[in-house]
């Protein structure tokens, strides 16, 4: 609590508060900036004549954006082992669904 008889303690408290506010915004703002830049790159790539590589580039950029979002904004980097396991299980079943589906469709010869 601020000591009214000591003006320095009020200033210290304000400094501590602004430092805390800086800590709250700094990391997420950097990730947000990276996401906006990647979004801009993806937008720009859309107008380049790359043929089939356009979609591949878009999906690769989207994958990087999701990794950034999950790692830093959803804080997976500090998550417990069981949370990582559940996140990984979701990804695993998604990959399995795509693999088995395309294993069928891409191997049909008609």
């Amino acid at each position, binding site marked *: 609590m601020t000591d009214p008889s000591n003006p320095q303690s009020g200033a210290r408290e304000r400094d501590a508060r602004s430092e*805390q*506010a800086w800590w*709250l*915004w700094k990391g*997420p*703002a950097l*990730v*947000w900036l990276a*996401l*906006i830049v990647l*979004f801009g790159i*993806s*937008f720009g*790539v*859309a*107008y*380049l*004549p*790359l043929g089939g590589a*356009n*979609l591949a580039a*878009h*999906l690769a*950029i*989207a994958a990087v*954006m*999701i990794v950034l*979002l*999950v790692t830093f*904004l*959803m804080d997976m980097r500090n*998550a*417990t082992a*069981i*949370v990582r396991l*559940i*996140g990984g*299980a*979701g*990804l695993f*079943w*998604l990959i399995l*669904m*795509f693999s088995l*589906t*395309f294993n069928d*469709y*891409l191997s049909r010869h008609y």
Partner: protein
Amino acid sequence: MSDTAGALQHPWPNLRLQREGVGLGMWLFLASEVLFFGALFVGFAVYRSFNEDAFRIAGAHTEIVYGSINTALLLTSSLTMTVALRAATTNMRDLTLVCLAVTAALGVAFLICKGLEYREDLKEHLFPGPHFPLSPPATQMFWGFYWIMTAIHAVHLTGGIAVVTVVFVLFKRRIIPVQGSTMEGVAIYWHFVDSVWLVLYPLIYLAGRS
């Protein structure tokens, strides 16, 4: 009773474990959501692999300006949601409330943009059916997926906005303390809805532009 004491619920021994428990439950739900949206994405991918040109033609008719504005809105809402969570964890009540309000407002702005976009689409009769203006016929498949996927995403976002609004009111009226575990689940869900859009955006708006 202090705010911290009110935040701790039975049977948790401390707030850290309680937050982890809420986060775990939300991740479990989201793992099932991944498969829900995954089924739509795999369907889209299969039809696209057989009708590449038709999907490219159809994709060129989406409203890229609305789609891009909405992407920026959602990314920014994820920033404010993250700060809301961090502020709540450190018991900065005012900042938590401001960030929650901004997050909900950005979500509403997304829905307004989406509504304007739907209006433009309907004006051009881009709804699969008798008077569909594009050819070949497989372009209707793309637009079928467009309506289903964006509408389901909008429903998820609407749910998110409703939850954020309710939590805001509960915090504002001090019915529940900000530094409890509530924000943990809300934030993870919000970011998930954002991440789904990050896949939808290139599939719907960017493919077919070059």
